[in-house]
């Protein structure tokens, strides 16, 4: 009897746990999470004895991942955000997947948009397989344009056209011409579209680039939108309202990514009309206004990477391949949170004009600096602080940008 008991107790439990680290709400029960969990379950069913464990980090994802690495406790698979990918890739926190890609006849990099692959490539090496992405675009509410008899934005509009359009649409508080938010990942494209930039990539220096005359002009333009022409409420006023004015149907234009569509589809009901403030069928998407020959925007992306301490490399590759497959992505992408990195899925799902307009902006998409420069996440708060100084504290753009450039150089070049 005792022998049977011992045999029973000693039976090894052949369970392989594959851990996946990602950011988000660890206790979320929304449809996106449910759908994701179902996809993981399907993988487990196809791989008996394998358990997928999702480690969701609610805040400070990058710091947590770096500490995990230092402690030798990395998850097997990391979801890589383009905005901080460089830190993981340049410091060898993730593995080069090129050998697996090359050895696998069933996997083809050609299935993915090149601009999304570029985010995590270094020459021939590839450190993450992209899952989905979003370009930053101008959203506009067509009903407001029709109401105030303003022509829809054209692909080749410049800053002056944009201002003219915003002014014509501006009838606050029920209809602001534009909603501007001081979030650097959401406004860096304004600099690019006026011929400016944040850094000199070759020297990794900001002084002389960030405080260029073009950028001073752009900061002045953004300041005028808020403080002179008053076509946008100030970021402070937006904070105090605590609502998304565009989603609420109280603004004609805004800048955001594809993820906002999820919220726009659930626009709050206007008590006066009993209808949603924003009818998402009235939504239009336009490229960023540009004083340059072509419009430019930033592409934010997420992808699957294998950690350098991955305990089950073969299984991890199987999982990455599974999650980035056509079959799975057709299900995953139903959430509509972003555009699929697979061309076949993105094109299959682009049945509406809106999605087609989104896809059209991809050609002008640039990788965020965070995908190439270590610690770029430190630059963004400095940029925001500089614009805040101009918008709220009326500091001249040249002074704010010069101060910010010095700080950025200091942060990025600490010995």
């Amino acid at each position, binding site marked *: 009897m005792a022998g049977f008991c011992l045999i029973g107790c000693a039976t090894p439990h052949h369970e392989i746990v594959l851990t996946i680290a990602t950011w988000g709400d660890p206790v979320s029960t929304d449809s996106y999470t449910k759908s994701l969990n179902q996809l993981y379950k399907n993988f487990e069913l196809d791989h008996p004895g394998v358990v997928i464990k999702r480690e969701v980090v609610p805040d*400070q994802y*990058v*710091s947590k991942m*770096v*500490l995990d690495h*230092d402690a030798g406790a990395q998850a097997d698979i990391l979801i890589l955000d383009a905005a901080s990918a460089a*830190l993981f890739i340049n*410091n060898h*926190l993730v593995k080069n997947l090129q050998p697996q890609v090359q050895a696998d006849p069933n996997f083809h990099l050609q299935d993915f948009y090149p601009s999304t692959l570029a985010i995590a490539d270094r020459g021939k090496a590839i450190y993450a397989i992209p899952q989905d992405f979003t370009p930053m675009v101008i959203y506009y509410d067509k009903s407001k344009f029709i109401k105030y008899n303003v022509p829809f934005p054209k692909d080749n509009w410049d800053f002056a056209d944009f201002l003219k359009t915003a002014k014509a649409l501006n009838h606050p508080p029920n209809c602001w011409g534009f909603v501007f938010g001081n979030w650097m990942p959401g406004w860096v494209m304004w600099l690019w579209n006026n011929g400016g930039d944040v850094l000199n990539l070759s020297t990794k220096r900001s002084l002389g680039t960030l405080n260029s005359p073009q950028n001073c002009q752009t900061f002045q333009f953004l300041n005028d939108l808020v403080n002179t022409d008053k076509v946008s409420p*100030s*970021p*402070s*006023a937006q*904070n*105090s*309202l*605590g609502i998304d004015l565009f989603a609420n149907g109280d603004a004609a234009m805004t800048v955001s990514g594809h993820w906002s569509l999820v919220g726009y589809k659930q626009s709050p009901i206007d008590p006066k009309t009993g209808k949603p403030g924003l009818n998402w069928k009235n939504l239009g998407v336009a490229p960023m206004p540009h004083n340059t020959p072509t419009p430019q925007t930033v592409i934010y992306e997420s992808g699957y990477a294998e950690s350098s301490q991955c305990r089950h490399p073969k299984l991890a590759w199987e999982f990455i391949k599974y999650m980035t497959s056509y079959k799975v992505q057709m299900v995953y992408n139903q959430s509509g949170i972003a555009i699929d990195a697979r061309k076949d899925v993105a094109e299959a799902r682009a049945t509406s004009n809106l999605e087609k307009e989104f896809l059209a902006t991809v050609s002008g998409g640039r990788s965020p600096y965070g995908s190439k420069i*270590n*610690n770029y*996440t*430190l630059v963004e*708060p400095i940029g*925001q*602080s500089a614009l*805040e*100084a101009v918008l*709220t*504290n009326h*500091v001249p753009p040249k002074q*704010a940008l010069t*101060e910010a450039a*010095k*700080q950025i150089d*200091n*942060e990025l070049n*600490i*010995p």
Partner: protein
Amino acid sequence: MAQTQIKQARAAWGFLSLSLLHLAAFAIYPILFSFFISLYHWNILDDHRRFVGFANYLFSLKEPTFLNALWNSCLFTALSVPLGLAAGLLAAILVAQPLRGITVFRAIFYIPAISSGVATSIMWIYIYLPTNGLINTVLGWLHINNATDFLHDARFAMLSLVFMSIVTGLGPRMVLYLSGIMAIPPSLYEAASIDGATGWTSFKKITLPMLTPTTLFVVVTSTIGAMQLFTPVYMMTQGGPEGKTDVIGYHIYTDAWQNFATGLASAKSFILLAAILLISLVQFKMVKSGLEGYGA
């Protein structure tokens, strides 16, 4: 006799051992290790760690953003400690009155001290919101400009943090002063009253001098707390606007956990420690004369 002493010593070491072990593992070792890495170019992401001596210290003392953070911490301390002290003393005098239901007020004053720092900070974000925040709403009722964004306006951001710290730190300071006030023998006031001393004279000549040890304790602990300010800055201003609230605690945090420059952050922590020690020594010296006069 000797055997009893040995037994007692063994028992004492037995009781102390756990605490000593805890202290060694979670205080002494980290402090020593932190000093060790402050002498190195030590980045979590970089395996090539090299000895640089005091280079991190010298770099910090020349770094404009660190000097700005040092200045901001000193400014915050210089404003919040004396004002907090005065507010705590005033509250203690008020709640020391033998009134009905006074314990309710004591409890109310103390509530912010037992609340989570994060939760309190979020509440204060709402208090400081432009237009709809509590303060701006009251200003609006008084027909005063109610659009001030206290946390993003360079003129008000630091003052807003100071005001918040005075209110949230009121409870502990009040309790300390209250216990000091309660410990003053009533006979002193009775004697002063017979000699014709008024309320203000009694306060100046009896209460304040008798509270000198309490004041010293409150000043030193409040100064240490103020110099280590972190949570409200992290939650409410992230060092902005224009670096006006970038205090040392937050600055060290960004160096360590966003730039991963652990060696540099450790050096800055020791500079902070030195600054706190220096300020505390000056405070001790300044109050010492008061204590001597009081007869301590």
